[in-house]
């Protein structure tokens, strides 16, 4: 709210962002195709983390159902890719599930534009509808979190059960090209990587805008005291709905990018485990800071990838311990750690406030 002056600190931060962006854009020159593909996936996850941070870190709503939104976006894109790969033929899994012609709701996904739009709009609309009921009924905190888990169960069970339409547990895989470019070629992969970097930057800036706006301040106020906000004259339910929908849309977009990089989406990606993992990325990176959330997603996935290669038979032990230690002893995550070093002298952080629990 103060005038934004070009203080040295601000300059440094700007320079840091520029360097990070430059590094990301030039990564294809330094890393192997496989690593690039991996990095691209991590960046897609970073996008989810940003969206999740908006509702958890800033608004104090913990959704353990973001896998659904991520998955919806991913499925929308997967449906397009599958139809594109089939070249007019029925997708293979429909064949072996006894379906003879393309179901009506699949048909529009033959168009890339429709699929891309649906990949963002469907999760957002679903979130809006869910949010309308839950937030209007003032379901929050733990109750909301557990409710989202129930939704995850419903969605995955349905997806798995409707194998003829969704590919069942296998999910949708076996793509060949996107908009005529072969997915297997390194050039396409590089292009997709750059698109992902660009998307990450755009989403990051968009989140910055939201967080910095008065809207963002109201969100933080809701986190601090939802009822208090109500007595000032805001309707928290609307704000929660909107930010939930935005967050879901962002997750959907990340899901689309994920499919393009990984080449498969299956109901397991919508399950409870990935949904909790997404939240953990944010927790470990540092909730309530956008950089932290994005960084957390990249770091955690990198660590997971490395650990599982180094100790394929015991890596979950390390991951579990890491989660425990960070959540319990570093509630502000990696970003909080850096922040503590930097700003210890600058602000008086009153002790008795302790660690704010954002949601209750």
């Amino acid at each position: 709210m103060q005038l934004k002056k070009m203080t040295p600190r601000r300059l440094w931060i700007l320079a840091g962002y520029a360097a990070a962006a430059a590094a990301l854009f030039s990564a294809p020159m330094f890393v192997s195709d496989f690593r690039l593909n991996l990095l691209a996936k991590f960046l897609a996850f970073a996008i989810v983390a940003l969206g999740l941070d908006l509702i958890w870190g800033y608004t104090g709503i913990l959704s353990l159902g973001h896998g659904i939104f991520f998955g919806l976006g991913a499925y929308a894109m997967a449906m397009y890719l599958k139809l594109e790969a089939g070249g007019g033929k029925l997708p293979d899994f429909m064949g072996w599930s006894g379906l003879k012609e393309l179901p009506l709701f699949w048909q529009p996904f033959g168009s890339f534009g429709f699929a891309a739009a649906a990949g963002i709009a469907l999760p957002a609309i679903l979130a809006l509808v869910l949010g309308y009921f839950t937030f209007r009924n003032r379901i929050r905190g733990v109750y909301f979190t557990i409710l989202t888990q129930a939704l995850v169960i419903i969605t995955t069970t349905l997806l798995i059960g409707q194998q003829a339409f969704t590919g069942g547990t296998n999910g949708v895989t076996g793509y060949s090209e996107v908009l005529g470019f072969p997915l297997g070629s390194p050039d396409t992969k590089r292009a997709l990587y750059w698109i992902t970097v660009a998307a990450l930057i755009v989403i990051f800036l968009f989140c910055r805008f939201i967080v910095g706006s008065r809207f963002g301040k109201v969100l933080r106020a809701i986190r601090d005291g939802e009822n208090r906000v109500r007595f000032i004259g805001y309707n928290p339910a609307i704000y929660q709905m909107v930010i939930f929908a935005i967050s879901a849309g962002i997750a959907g977009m990340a899901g689309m990018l994920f499919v393009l990089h990984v080449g498969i989406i299956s109901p397991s990606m919508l399950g409870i485990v990935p949904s909790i993992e997404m939240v953990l990325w944010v927790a470990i990176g540092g909730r309530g800071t956008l950089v932290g959330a994005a960084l957390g997603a990249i770091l955690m996935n990198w660590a997971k990838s490395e650990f599982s290669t180094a100790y394929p038979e015991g890596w979950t032990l390390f991951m579990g311990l890491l989660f425990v230690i960070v959540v319990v002893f570093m509630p502000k995550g990696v970003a909080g750690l850096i922040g503590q070093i930097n700003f210890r002298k600058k602000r008086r952080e009153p002790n008795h406030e302790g660690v704010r629990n954002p949601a209750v």
Partner: protein
Amino acid sequence: MKESAILQCDNVTVEFDGFKAIQGMSLKLLKGELRFLIGPNGAGKTTMLDVICGKVRPSSGQVTFNGKIDITRKKEHQIAELGIGRKFQAPSIFPSMSVAENLEIAMRQNRSVFATLFASMKSEESDRLHSQLQMIGLQDKASWRAGGLSHGEKQWLEIGMMLLQEPEVLLLDEPVAGMTDKETDKTGELLHEIARQRSVVVVEHDMEFVRNFASKVTVMHEGKLLKEGSMDEVQSDDRVAEVYLGKRRDADVSRSTA
């Protein structure tokens, strides 16, 4: 006087699981009036404020705002938008936000999502905010985290937020509870200032504090209206003395044995 009651509560009854917290309470607040609501613990004072600001739905009765609008059916944020502000007993500010940010979002403005998303601080708003900071004496702490303020400062911040909200009716629940004498004095000054511009209902225990204001006092007891009048009238009323001072004596006793 047909000249408008800004707030009219008629025959309000509130039930919690069969227990009647308020039984047929009526209250009429005139425009520009400063009204104190007193009574022993459990008299239903806070619940009365809760009814007015929409936190609690009455099981029967009506609350009319500005002579025409029945607000018992409205939601909290709609009531706040209409112009009824509420300050809770425990300071409830937004602790992780700065003092200035607290004031900024409380300010009277278009509170739709779209408006706040694209709102920018206009110079007129900035001025208002600064003069408010001045008034509550927090001009040097504008960028502090609100959670780091002292108890009294938090109370003033909340009062400041209420004022920027520019309500026509302000409901204050024990604004000086837990304050030092000095803080209490300052709060008194603030209250005088506030009462000049709008209608105020104050729930208060501190008799000394109430006596500083020459205004009407409503005494509640067991969810009912006991007595309404000036401080002197109230104090000379036998029934008030009985329920109130009786309680008072008990309180003294318990304090001395503590």
